[in-house]
């Protein structure tokens, strides 16, 4: 549980920064897969641009990114592929852009999930963070928009946050690249196992826990190779109709198979999508 803590404000000279090499979309092969998730309009696309050097258009409205954008960077000789996901308030979502995000987080098996949170609305953003912690250990929380928080007179103690959540939390301002060096260092450390995470998970009531344990192996048999079977089990016990349908129709199996393959190709003729 280290690596979290005070942000390296404006750290342009620190060594980590100098080793960060933006790779744009030149991704013939990569060593690690990093997913960017978060509520809408928390600056995921800005962060994506800061990491990859790409110029994905950043619009100031929720719902700007409706498809997956991909890019990469190199750090300490390793290549990282970054996937910018559409914003989502929760993993229990219904609209198609949110489903793209959910499916990737559940079935895309990212090596590290960076949950981008709005420092000025941390409580609301914590809903998604807690849900992501339920499904994966390798999480880094990126508390973004720190400049807006400071302007509003809010002080975010990322050390306390990190301690409570059991995963590193880094303060950033993606637009000015403040904290990006530390974020990259932390992502690498989590993936390499140098930072061991102990994500906060809610204690399920014993009966529910038992039911999940019983159901999960059945799901793994029905959909071979499915990650996060326990979470799926919980959702099915919860009565998630879409998920039930997807399981019966074989759609779930298809989604699991498709996740690691290429995302839908951008259409160069659609002008305003820019470099989606």
């Amino acid at each position, binding site marked *: 549980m280290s690596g979290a803590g005070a942000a390296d404000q404006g750290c342009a000279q620190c060594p980590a920064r100098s080793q960060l090499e933006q790779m744009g979309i030149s991704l013939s092969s990569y060593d690690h897969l990093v997913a960017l998730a978060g509520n809408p*309009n928390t600056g995921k696309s800005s962060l994506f641009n800061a990491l990859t050097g790409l*110029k994905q*258009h*950043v*619009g*100031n*409205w*929720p*719902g700007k990114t*409706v498809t997956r954008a991909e890019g990469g960077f190199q750090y300490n000789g390793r290549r990282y592929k970054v996937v910018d996901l*559409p914003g989502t308030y929760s993993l229990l979502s*219904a*609209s*198609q852009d*949110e489903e793209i995000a959910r499916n990737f987080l559940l079935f895309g098996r990212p090596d590290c999930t960076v949950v981008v949170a709005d420092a*000025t609305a*941390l*409580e*609301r953003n*914590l*809903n998604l963070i*807690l*849900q992501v912690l339920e499904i994966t250990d390798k999480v880094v929380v990126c508390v973004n928009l720190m400049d807006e928080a400071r302007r*509003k*007179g*809010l*002080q*975010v*103690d990322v050390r*306390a*946050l990190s301690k*409570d959540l059991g995963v590193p939390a880094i303060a950033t301002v993606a*637009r000015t690249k403040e904290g990006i060096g530390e974020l990259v260092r932390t992502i690498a450390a989590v993936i390499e196992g140098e930072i061991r995470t102990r994500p*906060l998970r*809610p204690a*399920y*009531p014993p*009966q*529910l826990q038992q*039911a999940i344990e*019983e*159901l999960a192996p*059945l*799901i793994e*048999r*029905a*959909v071979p190779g499915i990650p996060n079977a326990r979470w799926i089990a919980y959702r*099915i*016990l*919860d009565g998630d109709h879409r998920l039930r349908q997807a399981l*019966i129709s*074989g759609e779930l*199996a298809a989604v699991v198979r498709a996740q690691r393959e290429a995302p839908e190709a951008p259409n160069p*003729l*659609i*002008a*305003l*999508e*820019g*470099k989606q």
Partner: protein
Amino acid sequence: MSSEPKAAAEVLARADQLRSRLAPDFRDRMVESLYVEAERIARRAVRRQGEPVWSWDQRIDRFVTSPVFGLPLMLLLIAATFWVTIIGANYPSELIARILFAVEERAVAAFQGLGAPWWLTGFLWNGVYRGLAWVVSVMLPPMAIFFPMFTILEDLGYLPRVAFNMDWLFRKAGAHGKQSLTMAMGFGCNAAGVISTRIIDSPRERLIAILTNNFVPCNGRYPTLIMLATIFVAAQFPAAFASFAAAGAVMAVVLLGVLVTLAVSWGLSRTVLKGEASAFTLELPPYRRPSILRILYTSLIDRTIFVLLRAMATAAPAGAVIWLLANLHWGEQSLARHCAHLLDPLGRAIGLDGVVLLAYVIAIPANEIVVPTMLMMYLGTGMMTEVSTFDQIRRILVEENGWTLLTAVNLMLFSLLHNPCATTIITIWKETRSARWTAVGALMPLALAFLVTFVVATVARSLG
């Protein structure tokens, strides 16, 4: 493979059994504990320093999203954007046209001097090159002015406020409030607007948003609207008011587009796509200071150059097709004349003519090239390339081809309402995966365009 569905059914059956043993309120308790946990963690991590800062955002929002000032302010902003575009684009357009056509003239002379065959010179320079030159001169200046302004509004955070101001209208029409956002995207590019409907979760409301997105003019159609407004509407007013009149005319077309969007949404949600409007929450993001460099990059590289390249990619072959149509003869007349002649009665019935309709057929791949196509066909194969000012264009249309104010108005209406471009149609198919809805999305606007222009033409003619 057959074991998998069986295994899936087994999962659900077992799940139902297990669930009956759980406490009936376990869901509520889980959700509640999530919120309690979030609140506890946030309280520990976030500290407020001193007094809450006086919030600009809320003050501005009270005005921008107020029931009284919200809509008028929005109209004013849009009108101002068009006005600046019209004022700013006029002169550069003429300048670019003059330069590009001077190049054509020189090149043709050079080719002739070298003894190149007439058809090669004609095909390359009077066909392909001229198509490109028209597209660049008509489109580049308005786009280079309009897009940065649009991007500033977008990056400031104004778009969600527009959605906030208008969502009650869409709900009244039985559509989703977020359709106001996807409509706003359509002002940039209808294909992008169609993709952006993914933010609407109800399939019924999403389909309405997809089918009606075409009724707001995309950037490919602004040059047509702006040119017509400048040439015909502005000319009816004294010079001092001309630019305001032109901006007002474009504005009126845009508002009509919004009205048609609402009306068609209403019609669809009462007939083939019945249902209630669903509720949603829309977050108003904080106002953010746009970064100048990024605005320039986004609006000039991602948008302007992108759109221009796309237009050029269709304009070059279109120029070639037009040249061929004008120079291949069947009997006494050129193919272009045959085609235009064939379409003429239909065109006349809706207050246009055969050439305009033919231009629309050729421009199906991209709406951007309608005006250049039309002009090239009116000008025929002549060596007349010195047409560069709006005034000259006006003379050609009015004096040599019998255009009236009715022609201009109906062309603006037709441009607003007609079928989406090929890219948008393909996008509709990709998003709906339904041949039927794609056909509706393409043909319904076309039918509406014919109907409206026919009615306008008939009424105008009966009134003299």
